[in-house]
């Protein structure tokens, strides 16, 4: 069974935000406008969190790209009243836009604040319409959305492989953020395949997961900066 996962090397991340932009373009994420953004309503499936910490007199800043963590024991899927968010067989936390009733319980339950709500109908047709990705459905108002690990790319790769009468290779499925990362900080692949790059990186001594103590078992791993490793 495949279990899709991601490893993000914080040592390589420069905080350039290209993954954020690539994700926005790939997944038809709406631009909410300045006024809505000021109210805190902008939508970023991939977001760079900047953490500031102090070491003596030194101020250090650390960039953490944050997609949806696709938790193995996801707090958001537990509370959904209508099966609109659920864990698929290959470990993705899926979102059914057309079933969601917009109660925002999953947003309240997500410890990572990785879910976003369409407060208004943001997908207004304009010149940008031509630039939209035809593989990703646009979201109506009043539903929750979040990172899908570019699920549509997986479907496409699988269909192509099926049409050519062969097994889909894991390399065929890459996410937009991974593709766009200039410093190759993002790895994506099958965590259950011990030979995959992602599985190896996930077992590295540098690997950690966000808020691991909550027991949500995220499938996104981070690699600590080298200087932060003790010993």
């Amino acid at each position, binding site marked *: 069974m495949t279990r899709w996962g991601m490893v993000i090397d914080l040592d390589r991340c420069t905080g350039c935000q290209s993954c954020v932009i690539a994700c926005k373009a790939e997944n038809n994420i709406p631009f909410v406008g300045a006024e809505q953004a000021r109210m805190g309503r902008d939508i970023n499936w991939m977001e760079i969190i900047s953490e500031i910490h102090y070491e003596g007199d030194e101020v250090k800043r650390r960039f953490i790209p944050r997609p949806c963590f696709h938790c193995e024991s996801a707090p958001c899927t*537990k509370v959904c009243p209508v099966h609109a968010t659920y864990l698929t067989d290959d470990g993705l936390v899926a979102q059914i836009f057309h079933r969601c009733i917009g109660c925002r319980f999953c947003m309240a339950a997500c410890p*990572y604040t990785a879910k976003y709500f369409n407060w208004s109908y943001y997908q207004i047709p304009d010149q940008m319409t031509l630039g939209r990705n035809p593989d990703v459905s646009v979201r109506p108002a009043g539903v929750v959305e979040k990172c899908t690990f570019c699920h549509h790319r997986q479907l496409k790769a699988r269909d192509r492989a099926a049409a050519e009468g062969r097994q889909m290779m894991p390399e065929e499925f890459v996410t937009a953020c991974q593709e766009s990362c200039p410093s190759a900080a993002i790895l994506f692949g099958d965590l259950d395949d011990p030979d995959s790059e992602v599985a190896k990186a996930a077992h590295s001594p540098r690997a950690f997961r966000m808020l691991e103590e909550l027991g949500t078992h995220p499938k996104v791993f981070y690699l600590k900066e080298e200087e932060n490793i003790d010993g």
Partner: protein
Amino acid sequence: MMDRDILHEEDGVLLAPIVTTQRNFYYTVAVLLALVLWGAAAYITQWRMGLGVTGLNQPVSWGFYITNFVFFIGISHAGTLISAILRICNAEWRRPITRMAEVITVMVLAIGAANILVDLGRPDRMLNIIKFGRYQSPLLWDATSISAYFTASTVYLWLPMIPDIAILRDTVGKRMRWFYEILALGWTGSKRQMAVLERGIGIMTILVVPIAVSVHTVVSFVFSMTLQPMWHSTIFGPYFVVGAIFSGIAALIIAMLIIRKVFHLEGYLKPVHFYHLGTLLLVMSLLWFYFTFAEYLTGFYGSEPEEMKVFWSKFTGHYAPYFWGMVVCNFVIPLIALSYRKNHVLARTFIASATICIGMWLERFIIVVPTLANPRLEYGPGSYLPTWVEWGETAGCFGLFILFYVLFTKLFPIISIWEIREGRERSVALVVERVQDYLPDSANGENAADAVQTTEQSDDEPAHSDPVLPEPGSRAEKLITFFQYFVPVSFTFAIFGLIYWIISLIFLARRLDDVPSASIGISFVAIPVFLTMLGVMWYVFFGIMRNQEEQADPAGPATSTEVAEGVAR
């Protein structure tokens, strides 16, 4: 003319608001309608434009609506629960209070539940909850528990009202007669009917208590089942229940004081009632403070960083005015006002109740918003500024609640007439008897209970005039018969529909292999509760009906209806 006469009878003042209409009534209704219209305008705007018209945003995705939901469901514990507890304890002073309390529950529960629907981003997909419902979600527990409580408290409000509706049917003029005729179900007040009714009330009294406790427990579970800081707490269930009863009593006292003043019921709602309820309020205030203290001290002592972010935002940060306002309103002022109540009982309980209502609303707000505004990861704190839409909805909810209440007082007596009469006739004897039961035996071995001659039971009291029942075979009589069959049958369908729904959702969850399955157990509990309620409905409906068939032989009516007698004269 006939109507006015009854006002001079004993207890006639209780019927006054129904028979006569003061000008103030229209003013009140107009003001309340304005509030409701504001709420309606706000909701129509929101329906058309989406939730974007509110002040909700990314980290703070729940705001006023969820606060109102928790608050109103909390107020609903005023009624049925308090009235049930007082009935179980045989508190004789309950008699003028129970009806007022029960009405609050029914009205406010509907409004509280509606707030969840207002909060939905896609109200048009509301029925997905029925079609694709997941019993693992606390929201479904809420739906089940609240519908059980709503059914139970409606039944529990209506049952003790039957004899009073019969009084109205027999006395109040022709215009509304059909309405009371149907609701009274051919009540004649015979011994048999009385026994049926009392048993029905008895079962409901017991049944309502666990349901009420479950309601606010599962409301708290909406928060405590998540992993969020200051929500994920084991004491949230009891904490919420205590807060609910607390705010419920406060709301009840305010309602009582207003009704007393407006309808001139000083003879029924005496200072002693407020004294007793004030004691209860004081106890709940202390209990609430104890829970708050325990909740915040454990968080503070453990001082988990994420928890502390929320903690400090409440104690010294952005939400400090609300937090300290809550402490002052819920604890400091009530403690001062209620500790010494020898003089000015009414004023003191009123001040305490009013501040508690504000304080408990703030408490709900302080639970919902700061946790969301301080997410675990470092996004920086979120802010929340409600817009006119949220204020409008809130005002509309309060307006609708009071409007329902006012209209209820226009249609039904707000104080239970037959229970007051029963109290006049029997409660002194009952209390004397009860006290004698536990008095120590006297020196010569004589049983204390035997020493006093058993006070005469009021079983063989004079029969009142004939109840004015519709002619056999008339249209009205047919309508009543239709109603008598229609209600239990539709109730049966509704209950079995609910049970079918619960079972099918459990199968759906099993089929999808959806964790955690333990939570499904909660839904099983609901089934026997609903069945019991169905049993009570059947029992009462058919019990009262059978009596009509036996009308041929004269069964002595057990309740005295002097009002009806007065009319007959």
